[in-house]
């Protein structure tokens, strides 16, 4: 297993938050690979599972805050899919904590950092990560 974290980031919230983190010089571990998506609701179970197949240590789906999704309910649909992926992963013996759905606003780079750091903490326990 590689140490990479794949983060599917909504272009209306998490991607700007990540960019803001960079602009403010807030450092986080370089094992994060950000894949921008137009809405967290675009992320399919297949994408999450493929990431694990290719050896990702963890997969994050990051979308808008609840009730403030640019596409109304993309974030809640994403959450459902993450939950479903988790059951599939556990079935084949991969710890469900390796996949997570988080909500954040575009102007919250610190929250973005917290999510990355928290995931790395979890990975310390589970193996992989930084």
């Amino acid at each position, binding site marked *: 297993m590689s140490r990479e974290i*794949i983060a599917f980031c909504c272009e209306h919230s998490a991607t700007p938050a990540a960019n803001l983190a960079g*602009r403010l010089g807030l450092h986080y571990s370089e094992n994060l690979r950000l*894949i921008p998506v137009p809405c967290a609701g*675009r992320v399919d179970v297949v994408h999450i599972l493929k990431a694990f197949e290719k050896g990702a240590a963890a997969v994050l789906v990051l979308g808008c805050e609840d009730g403030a999704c640019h596409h109304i309910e993309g974030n809640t649909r994403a959450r459902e899919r993450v939950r479903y992926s988790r059951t599939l992963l556990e079935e084949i013996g991969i710890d469900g904590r390796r996949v997570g759905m988080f909500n954040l606003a575009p102007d919250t780079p610190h929250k973005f950092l917290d999510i990355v750091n928290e995931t790395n903490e979890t990975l310390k326990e589970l193996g992989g990560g930084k």
Partner: protein
Amino acid sequence: MTEAKIGVFICDCGGAMKNIDFPTIKGELDAIADVASVNLSSDLCLEEGRAKMLSCIKDENIDRVVVAACAPQLKEHVFQQVLRSAALNSYLMSMADIREQCSWAHEGDVTTKACGLIKMAIGRARLLQPVEQKDLLVKQEVLLVGGGFSAMSSAIQLSRLGLHTTLLVGDSALGVRSRELEELLGLEVAPMTEAIDRDKNIEIVTSAELVGMEGTAGNFAVRIRKGGEEFVQSFGAIIFATGPRTEILPQDPGSKSSTRIVSQERLARWLRASSPQPRPRSVAFVFDSSDECSRLPTLVTLNNALAVKRSWGSEVYVFCKNVKVDSEGAEELYHQARERGVVFLKFEDSPGISIEDGLVRIEAKDVLLGQDATLTCDVVVAEEKVSPAAGTDDLRSLLNVRTDSRGFLQDDNVHLYPVASERKGIFFVGDCRGDLDAARIVADVSSAVMGAHELLARGRITVEAERVKVDPQKCRACLTCIRVCPHSAIQLVRIDSEREVAEISDLACDACGICAGICPAKAIAFQGYSDEQILAQIEVLKAS
């Protein structure tokens, strides 16, 4: 498919990414078979850099472009323009953000990560397909539903911008309700109705209601019922200004009809008419005993309390939970009221109101004194609740939009704020969105008018053709996408005598990809974010 010829353009942003070893990256990328050219630059977004990029694309016959630079949100449009100048479709570009997401975000080994990011972008670029743009005709007609202040001022502004407007009014005339509220809210209705009557660009349909709507922005087919007859008319955009409904909330249901317990409106009429005999010696206002939203009740109470002081000189008490003075001038009104001797009593729990010997008795627990306060007075102006207009719920299901927790249209979604809805071409203004004061309504009206004008002004609108597309061969018409589309952009269309399939409207679609994510038959392709294009970026993990 013939092999792509990929051109990679890397920019170090004028030396802002010193921790990346660019020559190493170039060496590694040069080894990739379909990468035709790797260019290092330090001013890619400036004129000189763009000119070099353009000539490189032309000279090397590049058909897929990868730009590794700053965040796409900043300069993507600049590079898309270069592609267009090179007669290349602007969707044939993929960007890697090696500045914000790499160089500036990490302390460790950023060169390896930057190289990985660029490879992800190359993987995606390889699979990109062009998306053409096309013009769609839009109907330069706006429908305004409502006959109040918001609707009238929207119509006047739209007419000034040259858009033909139809006012659909439920009442038998324009501004019936607004006239009643004129003094209460400080509006002037007569000049507006006169201006509308003179205006040839504004048509008024009275005693009518909207009973059905189909189609998408630019061409809504609206079914209107008037006097038992129904007809269909098409409009490019619809602005709803259906207003609020105020209802009096008696604390004791039995006392509702009492002449001692009146509504704000009745008090205002009373004040306007010849003064009553005898004049009430004491008047108490009660508001916000059940609801958090008290902007309008505060304004109306302050105005009325001052008017009572002025006209009758009565003793005035205001029982309130929360005086919300965030409207323009409300703070000033509050100070005036206090100076003139209006007594504000802050209470907890709902006050008890009862009729005793022809007078009204109010019992409440005063928060500041910490004890029960009892007051007997001549007239109580009971609390009024502002709620969505009757029929709002039917409208919500008819339009397939959401309401907020109190049932108002256009819930508090910050991404749509203030007047847009999840459906393009449909706007909500004024008090159908919540209890708004006049200044906020004016702002709402301007936003909606701008939105409608942007959509309709040219008579045609440029959209991306089939960026998100249903494959009719794969579609099994399960309706899942139609059910989940937040923008109501998908419809079922008949393709032959046997089959119906889902079809996405290019104009109504907001390119979120929720349908592509949920389609069980994987029949929906989203150019730029297709399954293959997303997976190609993951694929790189193993390789790196």
